[in-house]
């Protein structure tokens, strides 16, 4: 890793944090739980790391435990992602869907 690469990553990190602060301003209480749940599903992005990790580990063959760990990470991250988006959708259908239909 070169210092430039590290600085690039740090820049992304800091700017994304500022962006995250700005994105959420006034949220009605009704949406607190779905927003939390939706953001939670996005944090399952570690699926990408898990996929790369398990692929590399199994490819090289001699790092078996490392591969097993990454495989479990794939499963857990996928539960987080699919379950998270599905449950958010279910909640929003209950709240927002009714608003449109019932009006």
């Amino acid at each position: 890793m070169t210092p430039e690469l590290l600085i690039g990553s740090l820049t992304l990190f800091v700017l994304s944090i500022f962006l995250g602060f700005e994105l959420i301003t006034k949220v009605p209480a009704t949406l607190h739980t779905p927003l939390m749940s939706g953001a939670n599903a996005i944090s399952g992005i570690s699926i990408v790391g898990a996929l790369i990790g398990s692929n590399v580990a199994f490819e090289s063959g001699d790092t078996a435990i490392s591969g097993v760990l990454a495989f479990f990470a794939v499963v857990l991250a996928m539960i987080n992602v699919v379950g998270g988006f599905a449950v958010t959708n279910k909640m929003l259908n209950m709240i927002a869907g009714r608003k449109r239909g019932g009006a």
Partner: protein
Amino acid sequence: MELGDWTSMGYLLSAALFIYGLKQLGHPRTAPRGNQLGAMGMLVAVLTTILDMHLEGGTQWTLIIGGLVIGSLIGYWMAVRVEMTGMPELVALFNGFGGAASALVALSELWKYIEGAEVPTGLKLSVTMVAVGLSSLVGWMTLTGSILAMYKLKGGITVFGKWIKTPTWGPSWLNGVKVLLLISSVVLIYLSVNDPTNRQYIFALIGVSCALGIVLVLPIGGADMPVVVSLLNSLSGIAAAFTGFIINNSVLIVAGSLVGASGLILTFIMCKAMNRTLLDVLFKSFGGSGEKASLTRTKVGSDSDEVAMMLDGAQKVIIVPGYGMAVSQCQHQVKEFADLMAEKFDTEVKYAIHPVAGRMPGHMNVLLAEANVPYEQLIEMDVINSEFPNCDVALVIGANDTTNPAARTDEGPLAGMPIIDADLARTVVIVKRSLSVGYAGVDNDLFYMDKTMMLFGDGKKMITELNNSIKDM
């Protein structure tokens, strides 16, 4: 462009979808689309990763597809099966899994070195080890904290057929333990940079992080739980961002820190709705360890016929649902009550929704929506409070602290918390199992007012009786 560049473009697209999706999730009209955009972003990220691995050659298809399918099926099955009331717990559990996944990726990367892969040197070594350490710390902490939070939201756990209540316990010296654990984790991370293949350090760090998650959540309960779950959600994002530093992946860094930051803001918004600061939530145990006010006063309960008679001729009724409605699952009976009132007495019925009523913000909205209550009848606290003086009857179902006039004073744990002004209605009917104090441990003057009628009993049972009495009139 080379392959790696296309991969980066794919990740950029996915990051943009996350940003736009999060933005839309914060507005009622666009929220469903926001969620879909987020899911699309995730799909793009996963496909980009798999495509990149495939074109580079040597994809372990069976394992990868296997892992993806197993995870998807479990996640989907859990989401479909969950009852409306169980959603908060499920969100907490999913969140724990996300944190654990990040921490496992970190552990897996570290294990490659332990199993003999070439250990990097210089800057890369420091960055990798610090990121592995932080990702482990935050990830494992999120896992244990979230699982404990889930059981706290459930209220307890069944072990060998016996119901064990989840404890809320937080003496003030526990704060010292939190600080101590945090310091030891920093020391462990520092040590591991100098000796990366020493597995003792990572095991110790995992232990410390798991303990930290537990002591952080243990003293917190009741109305503060949503705040903690939101904070843990923010942490799981940060864990993903740190993992991004280990494997040098831009989309992990962007998406992780986005969730970390927006989750933190959401946490602050929730705190504000309860008039609490985040530090209070985390370090001042709320009612949990303090002694509850002993009840000296009594109140004679009313029966459903009496209440039904009083309701005859009421022009305006405001229903104030709370935790008790969620527990007894009586939202359908409540809806039936509202319909009966409208039909029989031509009464205007509205619902007053406190921002933190129930166990999660929006909990009441979801429950009532399930019972097909029209959205327009659900009114937020700030709007409906001015209507109570003109309201004939306020029907409080299993709500306590959110209606306690003690919050208007400057003293006690409830001081300053915004409440529903149910006490301003001409008559107040309260459905509750007993006069016992709410989560804050403060006696509620509302129960003892002359204009208050208490219906003692389980929400479902009492509302059903009330409905029958109205029908018989």
